[in-house]
């Protein structure tokens, strides 16, 4: 491995409408090195990649490639400079053949005519370099996702690339396919390529990367040789907490729950291939159960299984000890479940409908279309929740899209509370909302627990989980890995569980 830097980014800064996405970030990649780029949501990974590939122009900072300053103005520019990128979603054209995809946009030939013989030859050569065995005339869409991914790499490397950027290439691959991909990455490393590897899976970071760079909130946390940074320390750096931080939980949440509380929902061996490994889970009345884990650990997938959005392949669900089938969210709602999605915009709000309509829709759905809530009753519900949750809106007839994120979130919470659920699943309810609203939502959760609801609380923020939950289930690599009970619920302990550190060192 040479120590000559292949790529150097210095002081890269990027602002979007006053929000600083990258703040003076440095990044160094050496030839013949696989370099993992890590960070939680909003850390600035994708912005950095986009600056590097010419999608965004940096507001400040320099990019140096093999000693020469470059300023890619477009992805095409970056490609020509020798930077190749493979994005998470394969962005090739499924209806075209493998060969066509590999040469698309730079077909050999002249006067608009394509030299198909040369196209095939070219494609075969590109695939042979990666030792991929595949028919260049096959339709791309007919191949497995893994093979498509490799074709994407072959396409990217086609241009005498010096540097390959892989943006979460393993997100949709199974273990065997990941191993194949790693084989190719090692081969390219041996050829002297520099590879930037963006991923959420810590196992993979330790399996293949030589070095890693951690970003947080748009700032550089540091660059480390992978072998010398223990897992726990890495997670600490990603989350911005010190490993030694063992500060206890605030007293407010330490009210222990009665173990005898009635079970509301129980999952036995529930799982779905490619989403979540089978897990057992018990949710009780008057208990806030936290679901923690790094991004991509399978938290949302778990919630979706419980709420009937995705079908489980294996396992059973019991509601009040009765076997329950949850083929759809509709059934779940009728059985007294509620689910506040993390994706407020896509899966939560009805943007053009009024606050009132957004608020009553779940209750109305539960009652069925024929038994309409009287308008007076609807307005009473609105008035009640607007006051109780301090929703700020001009009036109940304002379209919900005009509200701020925090107030939209409160309306969605009210939507579910109005159905008087027995179990409410909150997936990142405080994401993207201001501090005041956040505190109010945390207070509300405490109130719900006191009222005897079962709450499943999903969050990326350790502090928030420790403050709010009675016990925490920790997910790792799409597996429900362990439970941290009330007694030893501290940020440090939780972080350890999220990193899976105790299993190794």
């Amino acid at each position: 491995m040479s120590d000559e830097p292949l790529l150097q980014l210095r002081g890269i800064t990027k602002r979007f409408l006053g929000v600083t996405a990258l703040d003076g970030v440095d990044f160094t990649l050496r030839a013949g090195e696989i370099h993992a780029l890590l960070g939680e949501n909003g850390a600035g990974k994708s912005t950095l990649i986009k600056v590097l590939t010419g999608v965004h122009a940096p507001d400040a900072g320099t990019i140096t490639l093999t000693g020469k300053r470059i300023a890619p103005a477009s992805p095409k520019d970056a490609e020509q400079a020798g930077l190749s990128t493979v994005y998470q979603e394969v962005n090739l054209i499924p209806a075209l053949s493998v060969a066509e995809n590999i040469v698309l946009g730079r077909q050999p030939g002249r006067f608009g005519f394509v030299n198909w013989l040369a196209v095939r030859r070219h494609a075969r050569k590109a695939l042979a370099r990666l030792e991929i065995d595949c028919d260049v005339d096959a339709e791309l869409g007919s191949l497995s996702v893994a093979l498509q991914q490799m074709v994407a790499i072959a396409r990217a490397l086609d241009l005498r690339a010096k540097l390959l950027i892989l943006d979460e290439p393993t997100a949709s691959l199974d273990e065997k396919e990941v191993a194949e991909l790693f084989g190719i990455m090692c081969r390219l490393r041996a050829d002297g390529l520099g590879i930037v590897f963006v991923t959420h899976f810590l196992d993979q970071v330790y399996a293949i990367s030589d070095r890693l760079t951690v970003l947080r909130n748009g700032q550089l946390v540091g660059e480390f040789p992978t072998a010398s940074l223990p897992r726990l320390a890495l997670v600490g750096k990603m989350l911005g907490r010190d490993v030694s931080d063992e500060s206890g939980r605030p007293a407010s949440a330490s009210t222990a729950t009665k173990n005898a509380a009635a079970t509301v929902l129980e999952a036995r061996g529930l799982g779905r291939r490619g989403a979540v490994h089978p897990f057992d889970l018990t949710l009780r009345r008057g208990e806030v159960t936290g679901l923690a884990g790094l991004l991509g650990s399978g938290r949302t997938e778990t919630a979706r299984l419980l709420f009937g959005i995705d079908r489980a392949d294996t396992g059973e669900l019991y509601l009040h000890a009765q076997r329950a089938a949850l083929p759809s969210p509709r059934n779940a709602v009728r059985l007294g479940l509620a689910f506040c999605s993390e994706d407020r915009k896509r899966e939560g709000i009805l943007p053009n409908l009024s606050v009132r309509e957004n608020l009553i829709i779940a209750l109305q759905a539960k009652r069925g279309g024929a038994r309409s809530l009287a308008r007076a009753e609807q307005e009473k519900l609105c008035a009640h929740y607007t006051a109780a949750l301090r929703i700020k809106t001009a009036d109940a007839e304002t379209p919900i899209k005009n509200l701020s994120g925090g107030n939209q979130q409160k309306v969605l919470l009210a939507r579910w509370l109005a159905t008087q659920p027995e179990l409410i699943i909150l997936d990142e309810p405080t994401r993207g909302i201001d501090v005041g609203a956040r505190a109010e939502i945390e207070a509300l959760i405490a109130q719900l627990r006191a009222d005897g609801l079962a709450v499943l609380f999903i969050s990326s923020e350790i502090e928030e989980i420790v403050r709010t939950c009675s016990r925490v289930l920790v997910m790792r690599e799409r597996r429900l890995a362990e439970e941290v009970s009330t007694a030893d619920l501290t940020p440090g302990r939780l972080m350890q569980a999220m990193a899976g550190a105790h299993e190794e060192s």
Partner: protein
Amino acid sequence: MKNPDSRPRRPVSPLVWLVAGLALLVLLNLTKNPAFLRVTWHDGHLFGTPIDILTQGSRTMLLALGMTLVIATGGVDLSVGSVCAITGAVCALTLQHGQSLAVTLAAAIGVGAAAGLANGLLVARLGIQPIVATLILMVAGRGIAQLVTDGQVLIIKHAAFEFLATGFVLGAPFAPLAVGALYLVSHAALRRTAAGLFIEAVGDNETASRFAGLAAARVKVLAYVFCGICAGLTGVLIAANIGAADGNRAGENAELDAIFAVVVGGTALTGGRFTLLGSLLGALLIQTLTTTMYNLGVAPAVAPVPKALVIVGVSLLQSEKFRALVARAWRREGRSGA
């Protein structure tokens, strides 16, 4: 959080533009023919161009009623014209076989509902794009109608049946009265129950609606079934109006008129909020447009051109991007002029 400008600016109701357009058309007609709005009593019933417009327009109004709900779910039904042809043919057959009017109407409703169900299942259960799914029946429907009539134009001689399209009740034309009543009943059924809200929710954000516990697929299927029933009844009106079932020509291009009526009435093709009154006025506008062109002596073969221009204009006005573009061009023009 203080939000001084959070006072909702009530958007200008699209109905304002509609009514203005209607008024403009009427004015145009009045300059050519001062007696345009005159209604007289003749042969024991009302008589005049406005009555004509209402009677002729009742078919588009009825189609637009069903189309409104389909469009509100974010879909579209291109097959309604062909469904009209099928039901017309079926009615002719049942009447020829000596069946009563009630049986005939039931058959029309049944055929329409079946067609709507087929469309709805394709769209909501199989996830086929509405345009593609309903295009199937739009094309195949003509063939089905030809099969039913055996390729002939079937003449219908049935006084009670013809009354549906051409009769008068207490001097007022029956068809527009019946369609108006259907609008009222539908409005009550949609707004008194939560059905209207469900349709708007599914059209506004289908995923979110499903996650809120709505049977989004069922809501969509029912919208298509309702649209099919409206198309079936329109087929009755068409056959009754000309006293014949013509598998080839009945309801030709009727789907386009219906879609136009809905869109110009203020229900966006992207789905969500719908207004039945808007669709009713939209259908009235398009019939007035047709009658105007007829009065101005525009050849029927050319008539689609001005109609198309109006449709393009309305669609552009609805596009936020286009409005922004125009506004920007306007400003730039102003700067360079100054």
